[in-house]
């Protein structure tokens, strides 16, 4: 009780000081939502930053409190995008060998230090929707093009979904991953018909899903049964649409000969001259001679569909068919709730209420200016919703399991991790975290949005996607990764090499004398002050029981506190 009391008193002091730097003056637009005038406390700020960035820092908490949510969001929207491709090209220009390693370096650099945190966080969420993976051999061999694909997500994080969908579709990286590249019109003689891969996944995974949804994301039922969004005829219709796309700038004699289609190179010069793979960075281009123009194409049919019964008449060009088909998807009523659900699950909670999904989906349908598909407005609706901003009760089972990558980025941001030369040689996080950017095993991402582990959660009807990669093996390997990054990889440890990424504990040592202040500091930084009093007391008494004679002792106190928090169930579940 005594410890608990001390903590409450401290929190009250912080609150008083904090209120001097109140943010309200900077609010310029609170018409959308009631919560935008905050944050009202450091805890609110930390919680928001946990959802909107790769992890709060004390500096950013203070900055957000000075600015207020609206100004902070406006500032983030105005930040120039940090790009992976340029980072890698700089490395290549400096004579380094550039593999997918280098792309992971860029990802970590931007996650830890990028000023455009919100943009990067949304791009990461989009990378778990519009999935490509360097586990695929074609992609693996093109690390800079993979980075350019990620940059495309970064650049469109606050853009329009329809435009993003088209850019993704015409990306040669996606073209190779889901085999729309060089997909060709049917040839009855050879029993060849268009590849269905992209046709299927763009609908199932990138836009609408398999079943019709109500505006709030619940299943639409007809005679007690869910209603499929499409059938095999629709798949074939879209498969025909997505034909006739090859590298940009193919040589074409008289509109293109078959050997030119077949052997078109990815660049104007031969490997390894610079530019040999230039077309990996350009949208794919259409060949009418390989496009299935003649056939009528069954596209999606839904209430209000603009094509009659969803049927696209034959005779279109590759580009006009593509445009019509993407419009047909974009206008489907599922897209709003589908995207809303994805973003809410990646940023806020695994089990949002239908009303929350409905509110975000409504903002997707209309950003307030009559525009559909505004991702910036949608992101704002996700973050500023009452259900995101109010701390949910424990018993309501709200929250989500933190993704392993976000646990590590959280530690590294909070503790200012860096190497001597500024590089983040975090090349194989997937080995111990089970996750790395654009490295999922399949197009189904690291986990499915509706995954529910057997046992209590599925009995309660709760989804918990991140548990799909939380196995008996990874639960230990993640704890061990955090162990080495806390107990070993700290600045000043003589066993570390200059190129190792190390956390900076120097500023922490001053708190080691006072376990209550130490744990309170970490309650804010790591748990947005959601730590239970029993957890608080366990940690304080553990740290109090540790030696405190010299710097090494004090560092160990800090390290124990950090690691025990980072591996605790209360921390693992972000509320």
């Amino acid at each position, binding site marked *: 009780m005594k410890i608990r009391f001390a903590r409450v008193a401290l929190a009250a002091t912080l609150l008083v000081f904090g209120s001097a730097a109140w943010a309200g003056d900077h609010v310029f637009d609170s018409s959308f939502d009631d919560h935008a005038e905050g944050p009202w406390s450091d805890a609110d700020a930390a919680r928001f930053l946990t959802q909107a960035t790769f992890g709060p820092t004390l500096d950013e908490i203070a900055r957000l409190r000075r600015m207020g949510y609206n100004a902070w969001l406006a500032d983030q929207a105005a930040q120039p995008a940090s790009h992976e491709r340029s980072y890698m090209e700089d490395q290549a220009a400096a004579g380094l060998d550039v593999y997918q390693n280098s792309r992971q370096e860029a990802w970590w650099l931007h996650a830890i230090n990028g000023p455009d945190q919100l943009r990067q966080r949304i791009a990461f969420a989009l990378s778990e929707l519009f999935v490509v993976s360097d*586990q695929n051999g074609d992609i693996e061999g093109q690390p800079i093009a993979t980075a350019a694909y990620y940059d495309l997500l970064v650049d469109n994080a606050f853009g329009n979904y329809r435009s993003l969908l088209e850019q993704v579709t015409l990306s040669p990286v996606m073209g190779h991953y889901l085999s729309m590249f060089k*997909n060709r019109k049917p040839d009855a003689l050879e029993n*060849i018909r268009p*590849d269905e891969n992209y046709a299927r996944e763009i609908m199932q995974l990138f836009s609408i899903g398999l079943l019709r949804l109500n505006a709030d994301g619940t299943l639409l039922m007809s005679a007690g049964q869910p209603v499929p969004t499409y059938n095999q005829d629709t798949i074939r219709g879209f498969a025909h649409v997505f034909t006739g796309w090859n590298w940009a700038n193919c040589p074409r004699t008289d509109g293109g000969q078959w050997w030119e289609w077949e052997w078109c190179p990815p660049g104007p010069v031969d490997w390894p001259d610079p530019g040999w793979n230039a077309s990996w960075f350009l949208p794919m281009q259409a060949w009418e001679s390989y496009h299935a123009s003649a056939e009528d194409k069954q596209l999606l049919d839904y209430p209000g569909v603009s094509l009659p019964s969803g049927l696209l008449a034959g005779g279109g060009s590759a580009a006009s068919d593509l445009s019509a088909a993407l419009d047909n998807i974009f206008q489907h009523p599922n897209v709003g709730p589908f995207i809303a659900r994805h973003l809410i699950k990646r940023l806020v909670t695994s089990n949002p209420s239908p009303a929350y999904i409905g509110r975000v989906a409504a903002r997707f349908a209309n950003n307030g200016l009559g525009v559909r598909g505004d991702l910036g407005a949608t992101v704002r609706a996700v973050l500023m919703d009452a259900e995101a901003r109010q701390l949910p009760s424990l*018993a309501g089972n709200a929250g989500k399991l933190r993704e392993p990558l976000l646990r590590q980025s959280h530690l590294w941001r909070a503790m200012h991790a860096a190497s001597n030369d500024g590089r983040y040689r975090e090349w194989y996080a997937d080995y111990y975290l089970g996750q790395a950017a654009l490295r999922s095993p*399949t197009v189904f991402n690291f986990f499915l949005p509706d995954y529910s582990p*057997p046992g209590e959660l599925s009995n309660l009807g709760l989804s918990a996607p991140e548990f799909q990669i939380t196995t008996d093996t990874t639960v*230990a390997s993640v704890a*061990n990764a955090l162990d080495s990054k806390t107990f070993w990889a700290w600045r000043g440890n003589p066993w570390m090499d200059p190129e190792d990424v190390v956390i900076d504990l120097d500023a922490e040592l001053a708190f080691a004398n006072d376990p209550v202040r130490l744990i309170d500091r970490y309650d804010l930084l790591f748990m947005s002050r959601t730590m239970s009093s029993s957890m608080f007391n366990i940690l304080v008494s553990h740290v109090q029981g540790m030696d405190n004679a010299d710097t090494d002792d004090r560092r160990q106190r800090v390290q124990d506190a950090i690691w025990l928090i980072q591996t605790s169930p209360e921390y693992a579940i972000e509320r």
Partner: protein
Amino acid sequence: MKRRDFIQRALCATASSALFTGFAGKLALAHAAAGSGRQLLGNSYRALVCVYLYGGNDAFNMLVPRSTAEYNQYAAARGALALPAANLLALNPSVAPIGGASFGLNPAMPLLRDLFNQTQSPLAIAANVGPLLYPITKAEYEAGSVPVPKQLFSHSDQSVTWLQTRADAPDRRGWGGRLADMFHASNANQQLSMNISIDGENVFQAGDAVFPYFVGENGAEGVDAVQPWNADRRAAFLALRDAAHGNALQRQYASVMRRSMNNETMINDALDAETALATQFPDTRLGRQLRMIARLINVRGALQMQRQIFYVGLGGFDTHDNQLGTQAEQLAELDAALAAFHAATIEMSVANAVTTFTASEFGRTTSVNGDGTDHGWGSHHLIMGGAVNGRRIYGIPPNLSVEGPDDAGWGQIIPTTAVDQYAATIARWYGVPPGDMSTVFPNLGRFATPDLGFMASS
């Protein structure tokens, strides 16, 4: 709830709560379980190994007709992807398959060809298996007069359908999980799950009472920072882990951590004391996974396991393009790893007690999209083990001709055998009594042949 079910659930609930971690606890549980009756089937060990081929293996280029008429149908459908007849590895079955055609294996599979062709063969093939709700003809499919599983041709959904076999009923359990719910009381060790996966989370092994346990290719991983040398930190860690958590997600995380730590010690102690196997496994993803399974079977005595179900997986079968090259590599990996695993079961004298089988969400279209194939429906599968009546192709090999009687359209081949029949044949050997078969496979009665005959009598 039946009394047996009640006891089994109660056992699992307590076993996972770390109360019964000692040997005395296991013994007490074994005695309690013995009271629950008939699923304790004497002393014989039995294990199933599900080899999941992610992405949909193109089994129509794994098992290919060699007789002229059937080969010509195949070649006409497959065009540029047709394997040359001369390259096929001829199979020499002891009984001609239905239809009388002769078949060969993909040239990447010489070791499995040898296993198939040997006398006392441990390798059988089940032809054209797939998810069905009822037997169905092409006319019925086209007319929509007979229900079919929902979301056919989708990876995620058809995978679930395959592994649950209950597309028309709400049941989140896989058939491996349903078997485990039935049999796990046979194991004296009630702390370690009867279902172990080397390839992470899967639908197949999820039961009501039994949840799969996951190990890595090299064994179980422990939490380094809380080893006994740091008793204080360990105590704090355990206090945080085992607190009364107010949120169900927190409880789930705590329970995974608890299970992981409890089982890690047990498994690694057993593996450390193992007499090493002489059998060499290929150093491939599947080879390493099957090697770990062989090692776990090798220490089954120390682990006090009587009934086990294992799961491994190999990705990369979704050959929308570059199929010829990609699939050859995949099948070569499968060939070498399965052959090594079978050799290891012989070395351990458990070949008759271990049955390995393939699963995959669908076969692929017989039609071609240029250099690859798309999502199909029915597919051929392999069953391997000393208790397999090998050197035979079971079921009905489909007609592969374009727009032929088994072509649902665009070369999606309608299954002639349901996954329920395939699974039930394995389950019967595993020990499911005839009276319980309809509990495990409620739709089985819809199909004329509930037992395909590829397993020896139990």
